[in-house]
């Protein structure tokens, strides 16, 4: 259905056949009438060396998508359908053992909260070295020498000493660097980063993103960047998929997305970023409402209740993910009955004086 996406000639660093091809991936929690589709027929591709962003607010299904790709969803209580083709094999149909062999070596993942993602009672060195021992068949000696190298590479000073330390003895930034070292230990072909900077303070965020960009570029690893932060997208992603209510609502190359957002939700996300050029004391522009206001995708658009450009069709017909009708290029996909005509940022700039309410005296 959404094969059009694969025909795009990418402007990013990736090229050629996709490394990962997600097709109609759905993840449903619960059964029968209480079933809830956290991820609803999501399709996207990642080419070697490409960085693809999955963007959306909490509950849009971005983390569940990544866990489904990695095969890390709980064994019970959910149903996963669709296809996740990686290197010619459907990851969803591999046995646990086949999947285990690929995890950590070909596919790796880094998580949101570096402190809780590290084992508190095992020295850092062991936690890095065990990946090498599991996949490269290394003995503990060579593995820990390699671990020192890796820690050094991700910018952890004095790695020999740090190897013997425990997670609680490290700073937040160090911990995330250590997790990155573990993920990249076996030089995976695909790295999934699930909000890797959310738990860190702003200066550290920038460092970690710079590190990720550097390592990914250097090694040619493809990256799926999961985030709610469009600032992260702006600095890192070649292509962006905006998710809403478990579905992709807009897909575009980074530059196109920022210069001409088409989906009202994307527009809302962009408008909600605080800007230094704005007048002091101006209120932020959040997307109104919350995911709790969503209506089902069946017979409508889930975003309609929160949408300023809602039209009649939004409550009667499910929008399909289609190439943009306004001829903005074949690689732009959109799921909307009434897309934005102009960049909401321009709108905000023009209307700013009237909109100001409760500003400073």
């Amino acid at each position: 259905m959404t094969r059009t996406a694969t025909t795009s000639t990418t402007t990013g660093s990736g090229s050629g056949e996709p490394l990962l091809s997600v097709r109609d991936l759905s993840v449903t929690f619960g059964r029968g009438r209480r079933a809830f589709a956290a991820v609803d027929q999501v399709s996207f591709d990642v080419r070697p060396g490409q960085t693809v962003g999955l963007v959306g607010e909490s509950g849009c299904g971005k983390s569940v998508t990544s866990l489904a790709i990695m095969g890390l969803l709980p064994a019970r209580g959910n149903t996963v359908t669709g296809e996740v083709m990686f290197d010619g094999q459907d990851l969803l149909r591999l046995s646990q053992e086949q999947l285990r062999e690929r995890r950590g070596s070909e596919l790796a993942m880094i998580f949101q909260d570096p402190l809780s993602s590290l084992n508190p009672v095992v020295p850092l060195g062991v936690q890095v070295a065990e990946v090498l021992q599991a996949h490269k068949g290394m003995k503990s000696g060579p593995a820990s020498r390699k671990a020192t190298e890796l820690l050094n590479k991700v910018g952890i000073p004095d790695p020999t000493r740090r190897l013997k330390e425990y997670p609680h003895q490290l700073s937040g930034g160090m911990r995330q660097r250590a997790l990155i070292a573990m993920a990249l230990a076996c030089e995976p072909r695909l790295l999934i980063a699930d909000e890797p900077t959310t738990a860190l303070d702003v200066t550290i965020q920038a460092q970690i993103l710079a590190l990720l960009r550097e390592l990914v570029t250097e090694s040619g690893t493809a990256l799926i960047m999961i985030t709610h932060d469009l600032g992260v997208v702006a600095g890192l992603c070649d292509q962006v998929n905006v998710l809403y209510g478990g579905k992709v609502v807009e897909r575009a190359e980074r530059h196109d997305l920022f210069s001409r957002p088409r989906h009202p939700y994307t527009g809302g996300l962009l408008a909600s970023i605080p800007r230094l050029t704005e007048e002091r004391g101006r209120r932020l522009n959040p997307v109104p409402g919350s995911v709790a206001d969503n209506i089902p995708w069946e017979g409508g658009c889930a975003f309609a209740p929160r949408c300023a450009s809602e039209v009649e069709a939004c409550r009667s017909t499910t929008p399909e993910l289609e190439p943009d009708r306004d001829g903005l290029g074949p690689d732009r996909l959109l799921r909307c009955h009434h897309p934005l005509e102009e960049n909401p940022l321009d709108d905000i700039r023009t209307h700013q004086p009237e909109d100001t309410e409760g500003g400073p005296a």
Partner: protein
Amino acid sequence: MLRFIVRRMLQAVLALFVLSVLLFAWLRSLPGGVVSALLGERGTPESAAALRAALGLDQPLPVQYWRFLQRALEGDFGISNGVYRGQPALDVFTQRFPATIELSIFAMVLALTFAIPLGYLAARRRGGVFDTGSIVFSLVGVAVPVFFLAYVLKYIFAVQLGWLPPSGRQDVTINATHITNFYVLDGLITREWDAAWDAFKHLILPGIALSSIPFAIIFRITRAAVIDVMDEDYVRTARAKGLRQQTIRVRHIMRNALIPVVTIIGLQIGALLAGAVLTEKVFAFTGIGQALALGFELRDYPVLQVLIMMAALIYIIVNLIVDVTYAIIDPRVRT
């Protein structure tokens, strides 16, 4: 680490001192008392006063305590004035204590061997038949009084089936050499294999009875801890790293899940010693449990003091070991 151990040891010494004061005061506040117990019906006020003076009981309590403390520090806990009359109280302890320790260790090993793997399995199959069955079984384990379970086991396996000996520590017909008074160990040291085997068979039934409560508690704690740990982010990280199931289980799940289990093991030592008293009674097992019971009947202060103090000492030492183990497992408590 060393500072940690030294601090804990100082705390232990303080705890023992406080306990000795309380114990001393408490024993002497019991109704009856040693004089009436010793003299019985034939006692006259004069003979009672003479006996009190001879035993030093006419002195004020603080003076009595001071004397007790001085002697105790030299290893003299007084002479028994109960059933073991004439024997130094410490000897009563050293002769009987190995039996209780042997039984307690066996019971604890038994409990740990089954409780930890079963707790893990139950957690992995949470909500399944095995899990539910184990919970019911462990609930029964806690709920059934130790002495009742002891009688049931004895009746079925010793009396009816005759598989195991009903009482004692070793068959009297075996003329075994005793060096340490740990009978199984003695048999192994002297290579008297049949003596060791016989002593071991005598341990099985009381051991099972005694292990029932620690088993049930350790099982429940292990199960709960494993369930908690399995949901932790670092276990997800371990899976994302593609580690072998074995590595995830041992290094990432059990190492964390054992932290609360180790704490419980230390606390269970108290329950184990208390349970030993009852179990020894049923199986005529000549440990300190029996000596304690007899000591109370006859107000045998020296014997009671040494037994209770030593039991407390063991409890404190085990918990010290537990704390150290805890610090080894969990680096966060070391500082």
